């Protein structure tokens, strides 16, 4: 799973969000490292909807324009949990090896 996809799914994990809120959430989660633009976001939303990982939740009209909210589906939550666990295991392994190897070598 590519990082922007992971971050979009993570942004939706705590509840439905609209497009601009997803952009700001992703910027926040990645500590400003990933800044999505509208074109990239909506291409990703289109693909994730096609794959059944997210779905449209509801619409609001704000300043005369539609604001659509997106939510994580059950399948999306499963995929995100699987990917998060994979990353967690890799990160834990990296930290453990650094502790035993690199820290020992420099002691």
């Amino acid at each position, binding site marked *: 799973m590519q990082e922007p996809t992971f971050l979009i799914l993570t942004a939706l994990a705590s509840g439905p969000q609209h497009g601009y809120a997803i*952009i700001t959430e992703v910027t926040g989660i990645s500590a400003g490292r990933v800044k999505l633009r509208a074109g990239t976001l*909506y291409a990703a939303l*289109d693909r994730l909807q*096609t794959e059944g990982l997210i779905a449209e939740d509801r619409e609001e009209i704000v300043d005369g324009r539609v*604001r*659509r909210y997106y939510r994580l589906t059950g399948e999306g939550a499963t995929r995100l949990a699987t990917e998060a666990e994979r990353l967690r295991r890799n990160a834990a392994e990296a930290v453990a090896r650094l502790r035993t190897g690199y820290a020992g070598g420099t002691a």
Partner: protein
Amino acid sequence: MNEGLLPLPASPDPWEQDEAALTRRYRKLLAWYPRDHRARHEEEMIGVLLAGAHPGQRHPGLGDTADLAKGALHIRLQRAFGPTRAADWQRASLIAGVIGLVLQATVGLGAMAQWAIVSRVEDSDPALMWTFTSALALFPLIVIGAMRTNRRWLVAGLAWTLLAAEQAVTFTVMGTYLIPAPEMIGPNDPLLQWPTVLSAATAISLTLAKEPWHSLKSLRWSRITPVLGGLIAYGTWVVFFGHIPVGVLYDELNPQLFATALAAGLALRSATGRRALLFLSPALVSLMYFAFFGDFNPPIDLLTIVGLIALAVTASRFRRARGDQTGEVGDTGPGTTGRRA
């Protein structure tokens, strides 16, 4: 003080003017998106774009412009070929490889049938020609049989061996060169002959197809069988009823063009079919080119025209149906949702 004077017309708010100009320009950029996506998401995207704009901004930035162009391209590609997951493309390359092998076998069968007649009237070496034509027909079937081993590199290696053997025998039998002399470059160039291009496209497709046997078993054959059935029926027709050419192995082109146009029309109806067609497109282009410009062939006849019309009609049906996102018809492998691929 102003008594008796007409009230001045309210001057438009500069901020609103800026926003209107920016909105208008964003709409122009969003015209790159598919119609159904615009109808559903244009206002929403403009809202997001305006929310990220600077105060007083009247023109889209270069970054947003490039990003919208990239997004439109991605969505159009997704509409045409489904999600960009590697597994979907590998499955499509396998389908292209199988179709390519079946087509190659029909070419071989056709060549055998033609040789059966040509050998009676021409002074050639029958043993060599029989070996060549029967190998052309049987070897693709051996490659299909090798898929049972599920070994990608064995299958791909055999497909490349078939291509190399065809080229070697073409050189031996037809006396032409793999790299042609300048005067041979053109429709008569053996490298441009569509069986050669088909063979190369098949070998490339099978090189990309992982776990061929497992993938074959996961395919939804009810959707692929009509295409394969049509091609096999064509091969049978060539063997038993095909008209006889005048001494060249590959000039039975118009029925092939017809069968290929129909198969392509069927393939266009699904995302997996469109992906598979992309793998076979070099062979299709080569076939069209050779059919229209080759010196060996009769002029375009009614059958060719009917085939091309069938292709065009089916393609137009696909374009009309594109908006409603017709379902996946090619595969049911792991990870597919069945909604659209």
